[in-house]
């Protein structure tokens, strides 16, 4: 996936997270802000990076503001933000790129 524009997904409500994806010239940057960073920061980063890898994102700036989201929500928000930023349309590869 190529990040073509800035896109956001998610909210700042409890158990959710807000993911912002921006285009970048090179490399992948991940910023994380979380109320549970001391206990789950490592796990959140891992899930986010795996998700980005599955989506084939090689360049971009990704920032996550987490409000105690479960892994399934982190994945969903990262995917949604990336798909929006890549201006993806049409059928989605459930179980493939999205899993």
């Amino acid at each position, binding site marked *: 996936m190529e990040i073509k524009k800035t896109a956001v997904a998610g909210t700042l409500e409890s158990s*959710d997270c807000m993911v912002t994806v921006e285009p970048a010239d090179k490399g992948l940057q991940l910023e994380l802000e979380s109320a549970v960073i001391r206990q789950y920061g490592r796990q959140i980063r891992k899930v986010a990076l795996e998700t980005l890898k599955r989506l084939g994102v090689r360049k971009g700036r990704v920032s996550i503001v987490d409000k105690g989201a479960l892994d399934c*929500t982190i994945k969903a928000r990262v995917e949604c933000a990336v798909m929006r930023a890549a201006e993806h349309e049409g*059928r989605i590869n459930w179980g493939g790129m999205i899993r």
Partner: protein
Amino acid sequence: MNNPNKYRLRRTMMFLNCQKPSLIKDPYVYKPDSIMLDLEDAVAEREKDAARYSLYHALQEIDYRGVERVVRINGLDTNLWREDVRCAVAGGCDSIRIPKTENADDVRTVEYAIAEAEREFSRPEGSVLIMAALESARGVINAMSICDSSERLFGIALSGGDYSKDLQVSISGTGVEFMGARQHMVIAARAAKVQCFDTVWTNLDDMEGFRREVEIIHSMGFDGKSIVNPRQIPVVHEIYTPKEKDVIFAEKVIKEIDTKKAQGIGVFTVDGKMIDIAFYDGAKRTIALAKASGVYKGDL
């Protein structure tokens, strides 16, 4: 196609907005019979995509502990519903709720898409069931043919908000405006041997009114009610809990009929009175309800 879940207990079917992680993460603690993960009305137009990603991962990763997972897709008049079906089936949902069902063809259209998705995502054919929400005068009038439309269809549900608008009435809280629809739908569902579910009650400040309405629809023969807040669950379950004397009677009926049948006898008596085989299914339902309500601990 013989899906064992078709006739499962569905006293409470709780709507949850797919777009709200805090709602969908552990609704099973409230012990509803089914949850209805909503992609339709609860989700804003610009968040339809986000809701699908949430839905997919929730279905894949959250252990809903035996609670039925129904997905309400967007209406057939949108360009969203086909992807909704793919997402829900791929995620592993148990059932799909079709909103604004007008006729039997609507059900068949969705059924075709479901079957296609089952093949695409390697799920057994027939594993995904269907329920149809009737939300217009035409839909309600067509209840009978809708009930007969598909082997996958386990039930129909009244959707009171849109229906009352179509009928050009407002919701009074007394239920008078729904009398015809409710009676008609229950009769159609029973004729087709599928289930029938009542509409939501949205005024959470009026729990007494809610209780009265549940008592009415329970005595009318509805199998359950759509609900919007976990607080409503204990009220419905309490009203749907069989009375002790009914449970005792049902147990006797089942044991009598099972024993006599095994002995090849065709005449059954309980408490000195003759009963016939028609009592059997009702007694089974009573015991199932009693078990779900925690008031039957017997060996049936």
